[in-house]
């Protein structure tokens, strides 16, 4: 089948349409359609990934129109990997969150599935597209659906959190659009590969510099790099849990992918590191983001809020690593896109399971969880260890590449920040483990002594188990991933 790249994106789009229709006939039908659509798109993504591994970059022309007139989906090793990641996580999360959705928003379930699929369409499109303006439109599709879904969450606070997200998200997207405008003035093209070729001759131009700064600034706002992060913790913490655990691992990671794509493919690493003199400043920004995220996470008393600040910290890893200016740092940043998506997803799956059983995840509500939900907590501990960076898990390996890259670039402050934040994460997670393991259940829960087992449903546990296995697998095969996917992409 040679239409597979289009199927990846179109399956959830059609799925969203039919889910909406099916809700008129029978409510549960919309869930099964969503499940089928994301399954089709993940199968197609795996097929495309295999094809790209053997045959190289796949340039798919939409409706047969050749670029630069037509729209092109350009899939190389990097975005083939991200496509598998996004569609896989979307599918697994859908399996796990049907119970959460039924519990939290039973009356809006079918609209949730429609928006969910449109969100996945946006993410997959952002990843697959080879056109700068389409990237803008798809980013906005992703953002619009996430605004609406965040507003479905907590009754008191989520509409305001979503509105603040809109204000900042619009500024980010508008900056990106403006940058694309400047690129269009100077090159007259919107196709990424085309623009890259045309930019080679006009590297000194101020318009290109303006375009670069505006595009990168827009993407930074969307990915919540530290001083621009204010919208993220509230938005993700008050979203319904079925959505929070797909937006938290994917949205920021896909935006990091966009940054890497702009740096590597469109503007070119030579332009960024030789012509511009910004790399040092951005590595410092990454350092500040890492430390600020880690220390703000220390102040939180709610598990969900704490995890959102850890995301802010992880963004610092990826941005700093990508700007170190050597292939080790860039490889570490790209590997961390994959690893961090898996780790954050596992953590939020565990949080979803706890919320399903206990409704709240404030630290004061977590006593006795190891006794009550041993399987969930096993997954949580594994993901926590991965965030800290304990060797058999995947978190260790991306940090290893990042530290190696930092030493090679002479950015010792970045290496120090990585280590300090790992220590802070250790403190954070062991604080949670201690509450869950050692503190006895409060009297008000009506239990005495050891708590009875009250584990989450099997589908949720299966999803968590699968992702935990993936964390170990990505750790064990980290070298293979770097050698077969990331380094060939960079050279």
């Amino acid at each position: 089948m040679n239409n597979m790249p289009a199927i990846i994106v179109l399956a959830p789009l059609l799925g969203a349409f039919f889910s909406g229709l099916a809700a008129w006939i029978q409510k549960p039908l919309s869930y099964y359609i969503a499940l089928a659509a994301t399954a089709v798109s993940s199968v197609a993504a795996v097929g495309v990934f295999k094809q790209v591994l053997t045959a190289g970059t796949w340039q798919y022309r939409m409706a047969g129109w050749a670029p630069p007139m037509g729209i092109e989906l350009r899939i190389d090793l990097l975005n083939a990997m991200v496509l598998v990641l996004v569609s896989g996580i979307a599918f697994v999360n859908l399996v796990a969150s049907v119970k959460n959705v039924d519990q939290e928003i039973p009356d809006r379930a079918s609209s949730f599935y429609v928006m969910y699929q449109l969100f996945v369409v946006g993410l997959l499109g952002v990843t697959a597209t080879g056109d700068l303006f389409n990237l803008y439109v798809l980013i906005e599709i992703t953002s619009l659906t996430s605004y609406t879904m965040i507003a479905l969450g907590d009754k008191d606070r989520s509409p305001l959190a979503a509105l603040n997200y809109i204000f900042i998200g619009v500024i980010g997207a508008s900056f990106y659009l403006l940058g694309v405008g400047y690129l269009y003035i100077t090159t007259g093209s919107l196709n990424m590969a085309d623009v890259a070729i045309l930019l080679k001759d006009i590297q000194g131009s101020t318009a290109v510099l303006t375009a670069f700064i505006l595009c990168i600034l827009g993407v930074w706002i969307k990915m919540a790099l530290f001083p621009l992060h204010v919208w993220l913790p509230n938005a993700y913490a008050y979203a319904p849990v079925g959505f929070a655990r797909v937006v938290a691992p994917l949205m920021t990671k896909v935006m990091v992918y966009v940054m890497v794509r702009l740096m590597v493919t469109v503007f070119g690493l030579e332009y960024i590191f030789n012509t511009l003199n910004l790399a040092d400043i951005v590595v410092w920004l990454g350092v500040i983001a890492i430390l600020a995220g880690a220390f703000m996470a220390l102040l939180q008393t709610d598990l969900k809020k704490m995890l959102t600040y850890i995301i802010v910290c992880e963004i610092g890893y990826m941005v700093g690593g990508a700007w170190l200016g050597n292939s080790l740092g860039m490889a570490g940043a790209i590997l961390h896109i994959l690893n961090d998506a898996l780790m954050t997803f596992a953590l939020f799956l565990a949080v979803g399971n706890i919320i399903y059983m206990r409704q709240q995840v404030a630290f004061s509500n977590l006593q006795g969880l190891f006794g009550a939900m041993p399987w969930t907590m096993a997954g949580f501990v594994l993901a926590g260890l991965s965030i800290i960076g304990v060797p058999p898990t995947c978190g260790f390996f991306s940090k290893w590449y990042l530290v190696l890259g930092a030493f090679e670039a002479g950015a010792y402050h970045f290496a120090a920040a990585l280590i300090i934040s790992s220590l802070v994460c250790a403190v954070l997670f062991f604080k949670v483990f201690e509450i869950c393991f050692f503190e006895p259940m409060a009297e008000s829960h009506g239990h005495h002594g050891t708590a009875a087992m009250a584990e989450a449903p099997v589908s949720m546990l299966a999803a968590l188990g699968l992702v935990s296995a993936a964390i170990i697998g990505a750790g064990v095969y980290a070298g293979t991933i770097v050698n077969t996917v990331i380094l060939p992409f960079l050279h």
Partner: protein
Amino acid sequence: MNELLALIVAKYNFWLYIILMMIGLYAMIAKNNLMKKLVGMNIFQTAIILFYVSIGYKHGATLPIIQGGHGTHDAVIHAADYINPLPHVLMLTAIVVSVATFGVAMALCVKIYQRYQTLEEDELRIRLSEK
């Protein structure tokens, strides 16, 4: 001074869009009422739309269609003689995006108003901290 003036006059569309953008940004940051912030947001987006439309324009240029046509002798217009349609077409999409964002934001405002009976940010903050 004269050079600066000449620069401003020659590139007036760029100056205009920057001024409009800054008005929008100011409203989004400084205004207390959520509706006013939304209006600021819309001005911000419109500034970028105006920027795009202005870069496609040429003085004395014509439409990008085939001259003559229908039975007479066809002639394709030279590229230098017609207005670049692409930025305008792109902006149709961008307008749709901005309308959609504005709609979602207004729906959220309605939700907030139903919940708290106010759209003033400082009052909202007080109500939220009371919880």
